[in-house]
């Protein structure tokens, strides 16, 4: 089924409850081709006009269609508007995957290593979902954590992200030079209007993690009026603070796990320190 509008898509999903919506298909189609998934029907979202394109909103945010491909989001114009999201999209797999994969699909698949998710969480993005009962807006973190999950027959229509007009960074540690899944990733977003720093860590837990205490502390030590300066020691402490908040001490675990946790913490600390350092540079 290839509905041309959101209403048609919702109606199609309502009519065949076992149908699965598909956008870029980069996660779904391998599962289908290898026989792990055999949906009764597929509802292609590629032609749904409400999911395409993007525009400015009056409240200073941007509305991004769920069907925007990661290749599109990686373009320089998005790089100027939401730099971290564009950077994350550029690291998300090889070109042929980015050409098909969509932002909405990244959110719905919710892979722990998905690259755009830490950025969306740090931006406190809001998503709009639509179903036969109508539309509703949900914070992206509520959707990801299952606090307010996507209901049966619901599709993700668009996302709203704030335009903060300030530096943002997305960094990812990976085990090879070419595209691969992250071992850990960090998004750092500055919000100078509210004198805030927002940070999210991906790849280490089922959903991106927000080290809220570390954010609040580091925002208090940045010299917001004097060119956003920060002491070197404070930068390093922020890295350690974020790492400690995201990787717990394995309680009574074998030595190998303690060592692995230690290494992961070190990686996150380096990424967070570099991330904030670059954002403030």
């Amino acid at each position, binding site marked *: 089924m290839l509905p041309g509008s959101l209403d048609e898509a919702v109606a199609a999903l309502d009519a065949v409850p076992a149908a699965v919506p598909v956008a870029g298909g980069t996660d779904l189609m391998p599962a289908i081709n290898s026989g792990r998934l055999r949906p009764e029907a597929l509802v292609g979202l590629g032609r749904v006009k409400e999911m395409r394109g993007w525009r400015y909103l009056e409240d200073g945010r941007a509305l991004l269609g769920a069907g925007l491909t990661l290749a599109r989001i990686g373009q320089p114009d998005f790089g100027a508007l939401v730099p971290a999201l564009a950077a994350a999209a550029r690291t998300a797999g*090889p070109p042929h995957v980015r050409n098909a994969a969509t932002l909405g699909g990244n959110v719905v698949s919710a892979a722990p290593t998905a690259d755009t998710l830490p950025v969306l969480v740090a931006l406190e993005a809001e998503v709009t979902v639509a179903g036969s009962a109508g539309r509703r807006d949900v914070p992206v973190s509520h959707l990801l954590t299952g606090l307010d999950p996507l209901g049966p027959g619901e599709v993700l229509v668009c996302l709203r992200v704030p335009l903060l007009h300030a530096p943002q960074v*997305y960094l*990812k540690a990976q*085990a*090879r*030079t070419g*595209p691969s899944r*992250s071992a850990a990733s960090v998004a750092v977003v500055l919000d100078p209007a509210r004198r805030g720093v927002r940070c999210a860590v991906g790849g280490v837990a089922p959903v991106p993690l927000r080290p809220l205490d570390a954010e609040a502390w580091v925002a208090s030590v940045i010299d917001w009026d004097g060119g956003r300066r920060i002491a070197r020691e404070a930068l390093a402490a922020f890295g350690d603070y974020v790492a400690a908040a995201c990787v717990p001490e394995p309680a009574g675990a074998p030595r190998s796990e303690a060592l692995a946790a230690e290494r992961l913490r070190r990686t996150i600390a380096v*990424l967070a320190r570099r991330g904030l350092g670059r954002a403030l540079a």
Partner: protein
Amino acid sequence: MTTTEETPAEGVPAQPGGAEEIDGLGASPMADTAMSKAMGTYPFATDLWAEGLLWGTLVRSPHPHARIVRINTESAFRLPGVQAVVTAADIPGDPLTGEPVADRPVLARDVVRHHGEPVAAVAADHPDTARLAAAAVEVEYELLEPVPDPERSFHAPPLHPDGNQVRHLPLRFGAPDDPAAVGEVVVEGLYRIGRQDPAPVGTEAGLAVPRPDGGVELHLSSTDPHGDRDRAAAFLGLEPERVRLVAAGVPGAVGEREDISLTAALGLLALRTGRPVKMAFSREDALLGHVHRHPAVLRYRHHADRDGRLIKVEGQLVLDGGPYADGSEETLATLVALAAGPYVVPHVRVDGWVMRTTNPPAGRLPGEGALQACFGYEAQMDKLAAKLGLDPVEMRARNVLATGDIMPTSQTVTCPAPVADLLKAVMAEPLPEVAADGGEELLPGGTGGAADLTQVRRGIGFAVGMVPLLGIEGADEVSTATVRVLPVYEDLEGAASGVECVVECAAVDTGSGFATLAAQIVRETLGVVRVRVTGADSDQPAAGPSARGRQVWVSGGAVERAAGMVRKQLLQPMADELGMSVELLSLRDDRVVSYDGRYARPIGELLGGRELWASAQYRPHPTEPLDENGQGDAFAGLAFAAMRAVVDVDVELGSVRVVEVAVAQDVGRALNPRQVRARIEAGVTLGVGAALMEDLRTDAGGRVVNASFGGYRVPTALDAPVVRVAALLEERDVVATFGAKGVGAVPAVVTPAAVAAAVRSATGRAVQRVPVRSADAVERRS
């Protein structure tokens, strides 16, 4: 009358450059299949099709070690569309297979010994149905203790009726027990090598078609048609004549390719159902099922005198052979015999073991045994150099092997061994610049963008290494080829308008370039422009497996001989007529020309409508097994390479990128320089994988944790370094065909050692394990 005329170019595959010189030896014609492979139209085994075919799939064990209590295939068989379900109980022939030791059940009977071991096979009329049926086969397991550590296998309860030790090989050379044989400087080291998967681009696939005579025809991307046929026939309880194996397009092969469980299950299912059966492995199937590089634990102690001359090498080397023997005995012999590397050592005491474990099976990959040893002995050489305050290259130069030296196996090196020259060549190569403008993807960590230039350190490492060529320890290497010259009739009038050569040989071109080389050999010998190399199948005389650099030497030798015989048949009548010897006539551009250019005739005219052909067999000089002290002439030939790796390391994150690898290699003779370079690049990339990322890991319970290309990482184009060929030393090996040495394996062998040395120099860390993990490449801070 013999001035240049237009050569008949019709039917000749388009060649870059166009000049006819490019076709002979030493030129670089492109492979005939190169274009179709690049364009995606070349048919691989996964593209095979037959009317009314069934789809096969295997049921694999989810446990690394368990007793099979009961298998119930009833519910699977009752699913609509399922045509056959077979288990070990249905095997008509020999239930055990394996080369050279038949110790592997094709389908597990009583015990499963690794995660993913095949237990049953299913054929159904749709791949989904087959998968469903495989899931519906009920297998009741009684779990047994897994043995994932080869060192614990010595004392573990037997995993196999043949015991846990596949082979123990001691090597004693000189007087290692003499109290005087001790160096003033001693270094010790413990090294580990991970489990590299051959990871061919295309997974195993095949099609079995039952024959009216009760036999079966197997279409497989086999690299050893006769070996695979014989193993399948033994398993199916058929005479080998009733099993025919046709080599289908090989989508990449690294070492030996086929998984016998696929071959055997396909044959059995086709015979059971009387219908064609196709099977294509998923990546998970492939990663779990086929053989991997032997993980190794190497303990070394090197002794040297104050001048940096090696006195003694001691080693205890343990290989993880997985549950079955496969090629492990040969791997161990290579590992032990080459344990000291391409160096002259007066005293050697090495003990090697291959132990059975419940890990994924291990077998032959390029440079198997040699790669593991090279990582160990080169790390030791660097340690010695550091302790003596010597330059690592100088340390090596003082000890290198040369022609005429004696190896620790007491074999005299008779082939060219220009190790010192190779080292000089890589040393002389200019270093790459520190380019800051390459974009973030060329920094360590690459596309993740996390690299910080202030934390990136550059490291340089040197290594030399060696591999044996051909099978070792008395393996019978033999190949047969037939060369035909026949007239070609372009029109129906019957006038021969040209000639064509056909080469028939069962050597499978795995992408290693054999077909191209065979055509070059024939062009060189017979001067015929149009040469066709037919596909391989098991009806032809055996040519052996395409591995260990053997096809150019052995099958190339057979092609050369056959072509030489045809040449004689062709020229003798003309020589008699002219009253000159055959040697005074030359063949070129489809013409025979006398030495003085006075007589020239087209080959087609000499044939007079007949076809000339000859078959020839080639068998290189024999080798002998290593004795109880590891002594013997076990190798037919050796190839060497020296390398310099340059790496960039982000010392905070431990991410490594290999910037450049400079290679100097002893190739004997470059028969096709472009292919030689391509093989070296491929070998280096394989080595970079082994050095930095490729490791099929198991968890504490012995289960494979990363059986997908998401988890098992192979090098991408961004990970492949610039390969700078510093020198191809062409000192002909007189015993080898055309003096050429196999070129694919030795770069793979040396690269991990060179990359690890470079990471050591960048980080100051010990790096005792490949693949190098990021935690081992992080700079220690106080």
